[in-house]
């Protein structure tokens, strides 16, 4: 084993050697990952503009095999799969992005104020976090959908809210570290208002964990949103939606598999792209080989509970 350089625990140093070997290779790999995700995003955005027909028009018989007219065949009602694929992504993406933004904003606000104010506010916020964390994310969304119905704004709100506690935990732990630093102490001695300290001094230092969190939450949002659509609780028929398409057309898998394979592959490419890109960001900015939430969980075991 090499002699541990001062400044890093041995494990962190061991991990660094791997990424340090080919820096340009890492950059290239990251670019490929980003391209993967952005290609799908691009397809979803410009899809409606280049779509050969309307996604809801009945054009041929059900589950027609791919042909010259319809390169991807037709779906269970005889609609053009290509048109539906091109039109079926943008709502999913907007909803996932909105839920991510909502979750990050609420979670960051909760995490920073819990860590900075400590005391009763901390206890209250973290207990609320515990309650929301007691629901699996998908189940939490289903619970709200079950009553109000599959409204899109509700799904965005529910998924965003279910992200918030996880973001809050990560951000709280990061903030705890920052509040001990000198530059925070200095402005506190200058009697800067707490809200200003949080916004001006602490928030800018949370950029790297926030970037990683945003990437993670975006990936999970896409997974949950497409899952809800797949279950039939997202966009309602006859709307075109990748998740919904997979469920609608899987009975005809033997007849025209492309009606299922293409939307499934697009969702897969999208989540793989966002996740691997997030992973690269995490390696660079946090220098860790594992997801931040895992690190926090193994970290505060039996110690982080402030009671």
């Amino acid at each position, binding site marked *: 084993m090499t002699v*541990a350089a*001062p*400044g*890093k*625990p*041995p*494990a*962190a140093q061991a*991990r660094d050697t791997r990424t340090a070997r080919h820096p340009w290779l890492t950059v290239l790999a990251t670019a490929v990952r980003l391209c993967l995700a952005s290609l799908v995003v691009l397809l979803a955005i410009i899809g409606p503009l280049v779509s050969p027909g309307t996604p809801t028009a009945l054009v041929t018989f059900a589950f027609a095999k791919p042909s010259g007219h319809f390169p991807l065949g037709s779906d269970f009602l005889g609609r053009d799969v290509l048109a539906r694929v091109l039109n079926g992504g943008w709502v999913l993406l907007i909803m996932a992005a909105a839920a991510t933004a909502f979750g990050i904003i609420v979670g960051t606000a909760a995490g920073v104020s819990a860590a900075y104010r400590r005391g009763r506010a901390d206890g209250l916020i973290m207990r609320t976090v*515990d*309650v929301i*964390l*007691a629901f*699996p*994310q998908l*189940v939490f969304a*289903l*619970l709200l*959908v*079950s*009553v109000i119905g599959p409204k899109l704004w509700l799904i965005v709100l529910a998924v965003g809210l279910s992200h918030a506690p996880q973001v809050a935990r990560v951000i709280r732990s*990061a903030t705890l*570290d*920052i509040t001990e630093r000198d530059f925070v102490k200095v402005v506190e001695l200058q009697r800067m208002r707490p809200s200003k300290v949080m916004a001006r001094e602490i928030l800018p230092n949370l950029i*790297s*964990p926030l970037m990683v969190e945003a990437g993670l939450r975006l990936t999970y949002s*896409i*997974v949950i949103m*497409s*899952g809800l659509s*797949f279950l*039939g609780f997202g966009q309602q028929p006859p709307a075109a939606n990748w998740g919904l398409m*997979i469920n609608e057309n*899987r009975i005809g*898998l033997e007849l025209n*598999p492309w009606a*299922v394979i293409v939307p*499934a592959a697009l*969702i*897969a490419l999208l*989540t*793989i792209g*966002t*996740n*691997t890109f997030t992973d690269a960001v995490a390696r660079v900015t*946090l*220098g*860790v*080989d*594992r997801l*931040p939430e*895992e*690190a*926090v*969980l193994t*970290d505060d*075991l*039996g*110690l982080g509970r402030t*009671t």
Partner: protein
Amino acid sequence: MRANLAGKWPTAERGHRRDAGPHTITADRARRESAVAVAAAPAKPPAARRLEAHPIAELVARRLAAGVLTLLVVSVVVFLATQVLPGNAAYAVLGRSANPVRLHALERQLHLDRGIFEQYWLWLSGLFTGRLGTSLANGQSLWALVQPRLVNSAVLVFVTGLIGSVAGVALGAVAALRKDSWFDHVTSVAALAVTALPEFVVAIALIILLATVVAHLLPAVSLLPPGTYAWSQPKLLILPVATLVIVIVPYIFRMMRAAMIEALESDYVEMARLKGVPEWQIVLAHALPNAIAPTIQVIGLNFLYLAGGVVVVEFVFNFPGIGQGLVFAVQNRDIPVIQFIVLVLAAFYVVMNIVTDVIALLATPRRRIAR
């Protein structure tokens, strides 16, 4: 050995934080661990320690109390969300077929004609006395409806958890031992790619490959009627289990690999090597137990994930479990069933969380002394 390591870290950590700028989790962890080791250093005489409550027992008791409290609040949230939030649940259930007579009957069945507190109390006390009520969809007793589904889902979760944990730990350990080999690279890239895949995409891929388009080896959907047990036709379990295993293994693999590499590069393994301990013994007796300890928490997390993951997978494969029951109940707005299943899943979540923490604590000796 540990004390030696811990003594080195505080200084290392100070230097690290000065030049590293923004927060790093590794530094944070090092700081806390060193704090623990330092706090534990002035050991109390054994007699004094025995007089105190056992730290683990105390922790378990505290977590249990917090868990019960959390569940109570969860029950209020579930109740409020389903019964009170939309104004009138009876109207929501009946939808277009609502007429005054049916509305009135349903309001009485759901106790909507009483006050909120009384409604909640009737529901909560019903949970404990076994008077769970009946399903709105078919009038069947709730317990008769949910019990076989619970058993089926439990089988699915535990078979998956067992296979997934063993596979993840084994693959992670091998990848760490052969670090930077082709095996390590292939498995690491594959794990990273699969980590993010939605369950239903994996399920559909398996169905395409094994059950429909490419090969017809296994049944694509289970034709088990609700109310029967899954083990009567084990073949039907294969695809749901395989899907969930594929989804959970990457997490366990990644954690195990990282922990194993950390253990293999540690001072105590170095020490054992210098002493001339045979390599297989170093791996099995020194590195493996130390790497499994942090992995247990991730395994626990994956059991937690399974509580939500079964919903989609059971729906895909038409597997008569609690997740499929929840989807059906949401489709039919069967409020008593939704309330009960969500509460069961939340209870599983809370209990598993405590169990995981305790096991991880037991597996990490140096944390037993610290609180």
